[in-house]
């Protein structure tokens, strides 16, 4: 009778073998799940002495140790789903791995030595079995299609997808007739025989694999698009996704990536945008683990729960488009002044808009953000203490749009708050965040803490329009003395718009930002007059 430790060991061997076998099959059949084993190999990856990389836990075998693992590799036509003439998906391979217990009526159970060597033999034989499985995967016809889809930048009319289940759904007679079977020699274990087999199509010539004529898929709900829902929350699994760069954010057209994600895209206007930043302490694993954690990203793209214990994944782009690359980016976030404060919301809303300056240096927390290049260009800003003193390259249109967004979203109350903020700015406090020229929230926070900042619109031109603009500015300026609050903020929307126009005009005629404190004081005095 086997000792408990031998039983545990055997169970562990069987469980991990099934997991590894599944990994080997998927990595050799599903494009973009083609994982490279990181160096050094993790402890789990060293099992069976075959370093394949770590498969996402969500894709792993979740059944009991004695439950069969069935992996169907499907050739899925890529085309109009509504097209009645479209051919259905076809199973090109079915891999089955299972520990089959000895039948009750079989002869006497084979003698297992009690010296603990049995599970070592089982392990050694499992290693060889896994090698054979790995080698056979490369000899079967489906591997050619896999290589074609992986290497081609052109979309094809078929995709490779997979389906994992814990039961063996029988094939139809027609399908059965087309399939050949290969069974590996079983490996004896304490619990029974570890059996691996594959049913495969010997020829895939019937599938006319050719470059697809379909146009590239267009992402319609990219971040910032009108179609996108701005208030969709971050998915709970995002930290892992963010920590892991997506290998195919813009996948080769026609190669569909993994299955439908079960989460929503985050947006920069989320109240805690940095929560999922790779460098955030609150987020997932550290940046150094990005390479190791890549497989888990694909795990999140695969729906894990399916009826009848099925799990299906596809290499389809249809699924990835719902989770575009920008979703995993740590979009620049404003400094968090309390998660749900209007100010922080405003910061979030205006962050993505860029206001280019001559020097595009800007401090960004997401230094290692792989998706930085995919974001709208962040507002370049100087690393100097008071960047808003610079005027060169100030894109007034962007400033206007920033302010317009701000004005449209702020009510009386918010206006007062912003007024307070403006006044703080004008008194040399924090930068005018409402006109943030940087999409880097942390840098803006730094600016907010910068005591030398001067309000960018604090000009001392005496034009009528300028003075009106300045009055608007001035009204905003004295925040910390409530007596300076302008009644204008309690005015109607129409007057607010007028104020905006005045402000814009003022900006257009503003002097260079490099101004001393004196200019601020003069603007305040002008405001008081008006």
């Amino acid at each position, binding site marked *: 009778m086997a000792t408990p430790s031998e039983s545990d060991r055997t169970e562990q061997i069987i469980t991990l073998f099934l997991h590894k076998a599944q990994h080997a099959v998927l990595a050799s059949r599903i494009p973009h799940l083609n994982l490279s084993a990181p160096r050094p190999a993790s402890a789990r990856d060293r099992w069976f*002495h075959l370093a394949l990389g770590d498969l996402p836990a969500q894709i792993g075998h979740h059944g009991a140790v004695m439950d069969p693992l069935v992996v169907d590799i499907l050739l899925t036509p890529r085309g109009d789903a509504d097209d009645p003439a479209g051919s259905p998906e076809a199973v090109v391979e079915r891999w089955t791995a299972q520990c089959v217990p000895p039948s009750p009526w079989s002869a006497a159970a084979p003698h297992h030595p009690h010296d603990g060597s049995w599970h070592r033999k089982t392990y050694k034989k499992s290693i060889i079995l896994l090698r*054979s499985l790995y080698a056979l995967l490369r000899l079967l016809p489906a591997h050619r299609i896999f290589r074609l889809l992986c290497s081609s930048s052109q979309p094809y009319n078929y995709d490779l997808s997979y389906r994992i289940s814990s039961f063996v759904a029988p094939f139809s007679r027609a399908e059965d007739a087309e399939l050949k079977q290969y069974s590996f020699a079983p490996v004896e274990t304490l619990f029974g025989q570890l059996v691996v087999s594959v049913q495969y199509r010997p020829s895939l010539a019937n599938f006319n694999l050719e470059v697809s004529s379909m146009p590239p898929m267009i992402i319609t709900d990219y971040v910032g698009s009108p179609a996108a829902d701005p208030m969709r929350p971050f998915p709970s699994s995002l930290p892992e996704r963010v920590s892991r760069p997506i290998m195919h954010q813009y996948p080769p057209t026609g190669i569909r990536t993994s299955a439908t994600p079960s989460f929503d895209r985050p947006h920069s206007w989320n109240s805690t945008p940095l929560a999922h930043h790779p460098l955030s302490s609150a987020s997932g694993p550290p940046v150094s683990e990005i390479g190791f954690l890549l497989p888990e990203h694909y795990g999140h793209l695969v729906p894990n729960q399916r009826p009848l214990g099925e799990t299906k994944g596809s290499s389809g782009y249809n699924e990835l488009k719902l989770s575009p690359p920008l979703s995993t980016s740590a979009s620049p976030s404003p400094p968090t002044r309390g998660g749900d404060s209007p100010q922080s919301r405003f910061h979030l809303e205006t962050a993505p808009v860029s206001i280019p300056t001559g020097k595009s240096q800007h401090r960004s927390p997401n230094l290692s953000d792989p998706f930085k290049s995919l974001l709208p260009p962040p507002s370049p800003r100087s690393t100097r203490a008071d960047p808003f003193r610079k005027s060169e390259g100030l894109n007034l249109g962007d400033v206007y749009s920033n302010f317009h967004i701000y004005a449209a979203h702020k009510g009386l109350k918010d206006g007062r708050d912003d007024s307070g903020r403006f006044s703080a700015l004008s008194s040399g406090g924090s930068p005018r965040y409402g006109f943030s020229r940087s999409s880097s929230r942390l840098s803006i926070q730094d600016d907010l803490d910068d005591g030398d900042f001067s309000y960018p619109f604090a000009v001392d031109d005496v034009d009528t329009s300028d003075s009106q603009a300045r009055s608007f500015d001035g009204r905003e300026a004295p925040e910390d003395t409530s007596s300076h609050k302008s009644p204008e903020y309690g005015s109607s929307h129409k007057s607010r718009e007028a104020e905006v126009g005045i402000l814009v005009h003022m900006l257009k005629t503003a002097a260079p930002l490099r101004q001393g404190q004196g200019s601020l004081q003069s603007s305040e005095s002008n405001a008081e007059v008006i």
Partner: protein
Amino acid sequence: MNCETCQLKELVVEPPEIREVLRSILHTILFHRALGLVRPKDVECELFDIIYVQCEDHELEKKIDEKINQFIGWVEKHPNRKSQVCISFYEVKNKHATWFGNKIERFYWEQWYINLHIVSPKPHGKSHNTKAHVVTGENAFEESNSRCAALGSSLREVLLQIINFVNEKKDHIPPLQNSEIVSFPYEISTPSSSDSSFGWHADVLKRMLQTGHPSMLS
């Protein structure tokens, strides 16, 4: 100890194809016998539509390439012949002290015979008639393509044969003694350039005698 022997299906190859054929076969065998921690590397045959797996080990690749070069050198001197490349796995046991020193005894527990029939490429037919020459050239090209495709198919069968054998025979494999990539000592025997084929066969016979079992030629 049993010495399991596997005679692989004979392949008809031309000299330019020897390297690819031997590489794919030797690496596939060693991939199944190098039971240390391995990062598998897929290698695409240049001449055939076949992917085989290598252990990502530079020393192993170097050793195999050296042996292949040695074999190719022999083939150049002995063209149009049937020959064998043998890869054997053994255990080192019982160092017997002799008059001449300690004798290291090898016990071979597995041998693989790669049977190759080396043929020279067919020269294109010469014709004074231009049209006939073109047709002959086209035929030769098609013939070469079909021969290459047939060889690719045969090579695939050989690789499958290796997988079958490896799976069927597992009990004779000794326990793992170390954590190196190549877990068991091995040797690759090729007909020596200086020797005749007789000398090579003598080596094989000697090995057979050491194992104590007749070589299974089936």
